[in-house]
């Protein structure tokens, strides 16, 4: 029985080992013909379209489009500002001998992307009525300036000192 099994295994091995192989010409000719009739990968295309739609829908649902647009806008603004800064800095280098005016101009023009956050706000010295720390520096909305003025707050003085000049 075991001998029969061995014989069977041997014959199976021979059948597998002697399996006829196609010539390379035959393979190339069939592959070439199939290539000419290749079907576009509809599944891949459908998957790509589906995933893109799903991603856009998800972004839209969570306000991601607005967020991305705002981020892009900020990036553009930063790049723009840094470009200005560079050209102004170059100008400043040229005018170095003429005094510090050029550099001050650069400083005034150099706005960071964080400036957007403080647009419409004013930095003031807020009176705390504390003996130890009578003022704290805070940024408040321009609309709130009259109320702060009535409270006794002032603008920030030169060098960030408090109290500064009165709120106009």
């Amino acid at each position: 029985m075991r001998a029969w099994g061995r014989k069977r295994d041997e014959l199976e091995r021979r059948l597998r080992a002697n399996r006829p192989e196609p010539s390379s010409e035959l393979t190339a000719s069939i592959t070439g013909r199939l290539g000419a009739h290749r079907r576009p990968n509809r599944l891949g295309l459908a998957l790509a379209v589906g995933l893109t739609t799903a991603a856009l829908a998800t972004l839209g649902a969570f306000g991601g489009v607005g967020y991305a647009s705002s981020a892009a806008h900020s990036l553009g603004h930063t790049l723009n500002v840094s470009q200005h800064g560079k050209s102004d800095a170059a100008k400043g280098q040229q005018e170095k001998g003429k005094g510090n005016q050029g550099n001050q101009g650069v400083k005034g023009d150099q706005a960071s992307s964080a400036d957007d956050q403080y647009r419409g706000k004013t930095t003031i010295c807020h009176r705390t009525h504390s003996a130890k720390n009578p003022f704290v520096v805070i940024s408040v909305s321009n609309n709130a300036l009259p109320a702060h003025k009535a409270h006794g707050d002032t603008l920030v003085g030169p060098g960030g000192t408090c109290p500064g000049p009165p709120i106009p």
Partner: protein
Amino acid sequence: MFTRDPLADPEPLIRRVHAYVAYRIGEGADADDVTSTVFENAVRYRDTYDPWRGQPLPWLLGIARRCVAQALVGRSVDRTPVDELELTTGRDLERDAVERLMLHAALSALGDDDRELIALRYGADLSTRRIAELVGKTPNAVDVAIHRALARLRAALEQPPTERNDLPDAAEGRV
């Protein structure tokens, strides 16, 4: 809509279909022609392939079986004993080449059903379950049939080539 292309990776399929065809009708130009025809038909009927019903290979072998049947009908008149000629010239070849020729000669002496099963099992390398699906039998019946086919093949291999054409199975198997 999302039909997968059954011929997206053709090379392994070509190898296995060709091995099936060559075990079925013998190596050579005929096997190459039938293999080409199988793939031509596959391109034509590619849209009928349903990936939910199985892998591309059994689908292709379904096409191949029909092509082989047509090729065998066309051969009924001029079935020349090419295997014998190759066997006599094969004496000068190396041992593995002789072994290969003897194997093919013995295969050609088998009946149609035996040869079909051996071609599907050892040529196309299909599992018993897949063969059962293709030929419409139970896996158990296929296993038994393959076992018997191997026994007959071994008997054919052990007989000298001159006696091979007198085998009852050989006469029965040829169309």
